[in-house]
C-alpha cells in the first residue's frame, strides 16, 4: 500500500524522562536525517497508548515489554502483531513511600495504621513486577500486605500529596519529584532489585513495517544516535530543557529539578536512567519479566509473542 508507505510514523509516548530518545530524535532532526517522517502523540495513560496501538491510531509506542506482550497476544482485546524495534532505556524506576524513612517496609507500614495503598503505573508494567520483587524481599505478600492501585505516572505525585496513596513505584522523574517535594523517601529502585534491566523500548506495529521494511534500519539508526546523545552529559541541559518545555511547544511538561536529576551522571545515590546504546536486546534480557509474568498467570508460557528485530548498528 503506497498510501501507508508514505504516511509518517505515529509514535505514542507518555510524560516520562525515558521518552527522551524519541523526543531528542525529533527535536535534533535525527528522524529527518534518516528519512523517517515521525509524529509524536503524548498520551494520558498506558491504556490509551496500548489501545491506540491495537486499533491502528498509532504505529509505534514507547513501552515496557509486559504491556507490549499483553497487547501483542490480544489479552486486552484484539491481538496486534508488534516488533521490538529498538531498546531505549535501562533502569530508572523508583519505589517511594510516604513520610519519614523507616528501617523496613514492615516498620513503615505499622506506623501508617492502615493497609498501605501502593500505586503502580499499569497492572502490566515493569513497575508492578519490580514492586512485587521488592515486597518479596520484605516478606510481604502483595495479596494481603498492600492495597494495589493503578494510576498514570503523571498523576502519581499529586495522589501521594493528596493522601490517596501511601507509596508508588514509577519511572523518572516522578520518584525524584516526590522526594524533592518532601512527600516521601525512596526505599528501593531498579538498581537494587533488577540492576540494569531493560525498561522502555520502541515497539512498532507489523503493519507499518510491512509497508516498507527498509524503514526499520533507518529508524534504528536515528534512535541509536538519539540514545548516544541522551547518554552524553554534555547534552543533559538541552535535553532537560526539551523535556520540561510545555507539551504545546513540543516538550513533555516535566518538572525541571527532578528531570535533571534523572540524567545527572555524578549522582551517587538515587536511581539513574541509562540510555547508553549497547548490544542488541536478547531474549535473556527479558527473561525475568517473562518468568514473573508466567508466575502471575498473565501468560501460558515463556514464549515471546513478538520478534526482536533491532537492526545492527552502523559500522
Amino acid at each position, binding site marked *: 500500500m503506497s498510501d501507508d508507505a508514505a504516511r509518517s510514523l505515529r509514535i505514542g509516548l507518555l510524560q516520562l524522562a525515558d521518552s527522551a530518545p524519541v523526543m531528542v530524535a525529533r527535536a535534533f532532526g535525527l528522524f529527518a536525517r534518516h528519512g523517517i517522517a515521525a509524529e509524536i502523540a503524548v498520551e494520558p495513560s498506558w*491504556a490509551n497508548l496500548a*489501545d491506540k496501538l491495537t*486499533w491502528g491510531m498509532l504505529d509505534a509506542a514507547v513501552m515496557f515489554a509486559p504491556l507490549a506482550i499483553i497487547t501483542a497476544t490480544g489479552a486486552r482485546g484484539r491481538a496486534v502483531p508488534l516488533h521490538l524495534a529498538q531498546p531505549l532505556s535501562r533502569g530508572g524506576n523508583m519505589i517511594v513511600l510516604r513520610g519519614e524513612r523507616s528501617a523496613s517496609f514492615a516498620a513503615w507500614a505499622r506506623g501508617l495504621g492502615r493497609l498501605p495503598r501502593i500505586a503502580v503505573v499499569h497492572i502490566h508494567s515493569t513497575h508492578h513486577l519490580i514492586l512485587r520483587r521488592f515486597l518479596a524481599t520484605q516478606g510481604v505478600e502483595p495479596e494481603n500486605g498492600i492495597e494495589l492501585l493503578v*494510576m*498514570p505516572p503523571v498523576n502519581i505525585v499529586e495522589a501521594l500529596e493528596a493522601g490517596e496513596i501511601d507509596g508508588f513505584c514509577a519511572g523518572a522523574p516522578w520518584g525524584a519529584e516526590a522526594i524533592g517535594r518532601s512527600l516521601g523517601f525512596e526505599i528501593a529502585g531498579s538498581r537494587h532489585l533488577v540492576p540494569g534491566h531493560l525498561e522502555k523500548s520502541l515497539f512498532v506495529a507489523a503493519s507499518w513495517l510491512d509497508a516498507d521494511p527498509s524503514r526499520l534500519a533507518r529508524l534504528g539508526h536515528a534512535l541509536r544516535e538519539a540514545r548516544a546523545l541522551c547518554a552524553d552529559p554534555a547534552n543533559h541541559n538541552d535535553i532537560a530543557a526539551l523535556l520540561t518545555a510545555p507539551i504545546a511547544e513540543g516538550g513533555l511538561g516535566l518538572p525541571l529539578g527532578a528531570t535533571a536529576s534523572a540524567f545527572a551522571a555524578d549522582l551517587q545515590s538515587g536511581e539513574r536512567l541509562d540510555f547508553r546504546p549497547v548490544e542488541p536486546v536478547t531474549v535473556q534480557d527479558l527473561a525475568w519479566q517473562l518468568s514473573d509474568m508466567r508466575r502471575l498467570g498473565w501468560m501460558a508460557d515463556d514464549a515471546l509473542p513478538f520478534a526482536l528485530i533491532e537492526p545492527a548498528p552502523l559500522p
Partner: protein
Amino acid sequence: MKVLLADENRRRVQALFEVLHADPALTVFRLESGMALIEAVSLHAPDVVLVDIARPDRDALDSVRALASTSQASPIALLVDEDDPELMEAAFEAGVCSYNVLTTPLTDAKPLLRAAIALYARFRRTEEELRRAQQLLADRMALDRAKRLLMQTDRLDEAQAHRLLQRRAMREQRRLPDIARDILRAHDKDTAR
C-alpha cells in the same frame, strides 16, 4: 441494564445522558466529579461503562479484570467485537470506549456504544473546527512576532524576514510557525540572561 457515563465534558455527557435516559430499559448514572471511576464502578455496579477515551483513570478499569481474583469486583473489560473491527475503530476515532461486565451480552452493549460514537463524533467535529481556528490564529501571531523581531534585530524588511524564515523551514523540513516559535524562544532566553 445499568449504564455509567464517565466524561468530564459536561455538555457532551448531558447530551448522551438525555439520549440514553429516553430508553426505559436503561438506568443511567453519571460519574460525579471528584469521584474515581473505579469507585463509581463499585458503587453503581453498572453492566456497561461508557468512557471518554482520554480519561487517564481508564487505566484502573484494566486492572479490575486482572485483580478480580483478589477482590469482590466483577470482571470488567473493554468491549471488543472481533467480528466488527470497524466499530472499534470508529469508537477510537470518535474518542469513546465501552467497558462491560463480562456477563453482559455483546448484543446489548453494542447499540449503546454506537449511540455514543455518533454523539462523540458530532462533538469532535465542532471541537476540531474550533481547535483549527485557534491554531491558525496562534500560528499567524507567532509568525508576525518573529518577523517583527527579525526586522528589528537583523535590520531586514518584512519580505526578507519572511524569506529567512522560509529558507530555514525548508532546510529543517519543519513548519514555518514552528520555526517562528523557535526564534521567539531563543530570543526570550537571550534576553532573560
